[in-house]
């Protein structure tokens, strides 16, 4: 039973993290190649605060806040730089985060922080908390997507300049998207830290940022259920393909490449295609 609980907790945290990025990239069309930095910010905030014996229920919102504050600044940066430049800037933030954490003894340096205390409830209780938070955010995302705000996001993703000509303050929406998307990543980070009880700079590197972006894209950019599904699948994939062991990363990158090469719209577009085919044939 323990194994299943661990598996489900990992899955749930990944879904939350991916949905956070989906809010920024999928809804608002702002690419982020450094989202793991926000996961890391949340994780380190919570880990350090717990070490100072502050209860988990306070460190959790605090993680959301620190990650969200950082996200606010990236949101500001996204007003200056766009498209490919934004992609590289966010990637830079990711490297900067790892670089700073790695060199400071305060953050545990290369060794990271181990022995993070348990959040104070059973493993099953913790799993329920993760699932509850993930569901909460999934519903919030769907609600936003259906609301007028979702349409504004869509329009910004489509063409920023035209949106601002329509009299919409693009800056506010972009910053809002970044703050929400990054605070959620911060929450996911706090959960991650207390789930694994150990964090280090390598857990939040570029590969993590790429894999979460891969979850969003393989699922289908912007679609909440498809992103959740692909995040669930991809997060446990490494455990499921243990048998290919040495070729794990090759398999993973091969999958990612073929997905981009043959179905760039992700799983959502495959399902859509199958649906329309069914309708045609019936």
């Amino acid at each position, binding site marked *: 039973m323990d194994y299943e609980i661990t598996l489900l907790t990992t899955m749930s945290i990944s879904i939350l993290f991916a949905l956070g990025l989906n809010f920024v990239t999928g809804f608002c069309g702002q690419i982020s190649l450094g989202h793991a930095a926000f996961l890391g910010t949340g994780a380190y905030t919570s880990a350090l605060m717990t070490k100072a014996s502050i209860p988990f229920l306070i460190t959790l919102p605090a993680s959301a806040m620190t990650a969200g504050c950082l996200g606010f600044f990236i949101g500001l940066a996204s007003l200056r730089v766009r498209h490919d430049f934004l992609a590289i800037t966010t990637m830079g933030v990711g490297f900067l985060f790892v*670089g700073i954490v790695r060199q400071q003894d305060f953050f545990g340096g290369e060794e990271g922080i181990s022995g993070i205390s348990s959040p104070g409830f059973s493993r099953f209780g913790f799993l329920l908390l993760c699932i509850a938070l993930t569901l909460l955010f999934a519903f919030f995302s769907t609600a936003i997507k259906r609301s007028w705000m979702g349409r504004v996001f869509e329009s910004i993703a489509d063409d920023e300049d035209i949106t601002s000509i329509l009299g919409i303050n693009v800056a506010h929406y972009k910053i809002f998207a970044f703050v929400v998307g990054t605070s959620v990543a911060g929450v996911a980070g706090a959960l991650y830290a207390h789930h694994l009880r150990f964090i280090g700079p390598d857990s939040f590197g570029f590969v993590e940022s790429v894999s979460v972006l*891969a979850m969003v894209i393989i699922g289908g950019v912007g679609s909440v259920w498809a992103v959740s599904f692909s995040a669930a699948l991809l997060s446990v994939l490494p455990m499921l393909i243990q048998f290919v062991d040495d070729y794990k990363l090759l398999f993973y990158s091969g999958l990612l*490449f073929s997905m981009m090469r043959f179905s760039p719209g992700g799983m959502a577009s495959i399902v859509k295609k199958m649906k329309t085919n069914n309708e045609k044939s019936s």
Partner: protein
Amino acid sequence: MLYLELFIQGIVQGSLYGLMTLGLTLVYGLLRILHVAHAGLFTLGGYIGVLVTNQTGSFGLALITAMVTVGVMGMGVYKFAYEPLLKRPPFVILIASIALFIASEEIFRIIFGPYGLSYENPPLKGQVEIFGGMKIKVGEIIVIGFSLAMLSSLAWLSKYTRTGMAWRATVSDPDIAQAFGVNKNKVRYLNFFMASALTATAGVFVALLNNLVEPTMGSVPSYKGLAIIVLGGLGNIRGTLIASLLLGVVESYGTIYLGKILDRDAIAFGLLIIVLMIRPKGILGEK
């Protein structure tokens, strides 16, 4: 004296960055692709360099073999990975390219083992003394000289030959160039060949200076390469060269004076973010 030594190290590193990233800029300038897999080709160049030198004992032959093989591989990458995706949103190609790069690292690891290879008999290992008893490796002099030669011949080719003109015309306006009878596809293949051949030489030289090739040697140029071409103003060749040299020198001093706070990669990206916040389109990007 330390200042001067650091400066020369910075210039050497900067020249290597220049050789690596010029190809990235060529690709971006023509097709707007952030070509991360370029670094996989760089690693391939390094491996071919070491393997051929160890087999035949000739460094020159190794360099040429690396350039040609990697150049052809580069054209293959364009043909099979990028061409079908050109009409898709840019992040699709970016992710595909990252995936390709990770896969290439894994393939090198599986074929050649995780610990890397070295030259059995490292070529060009002497040192020369220049003013004030300061020593500089022959290999480093060759790196600076070779990049200068490559870059100036490239500049000459693009300015004074028909092919060069066709290339420049396609960069500035593909449709009009095509209307004047320029074959768009030929230009693209040529572009990928040149870009990949250049990065292959960078791989060979990095392998020479460190006397080591390893599967992960591409990870630094891949992401830092992107930082450099963005710094220079995407697609801007002169900007890329300036940014390469600038980053080489800043890193060289930075690791000494900022090493306690930031690691080497973080310095590069810190510089990138500062410059972009001041000039959002890079040092020489259009306004």
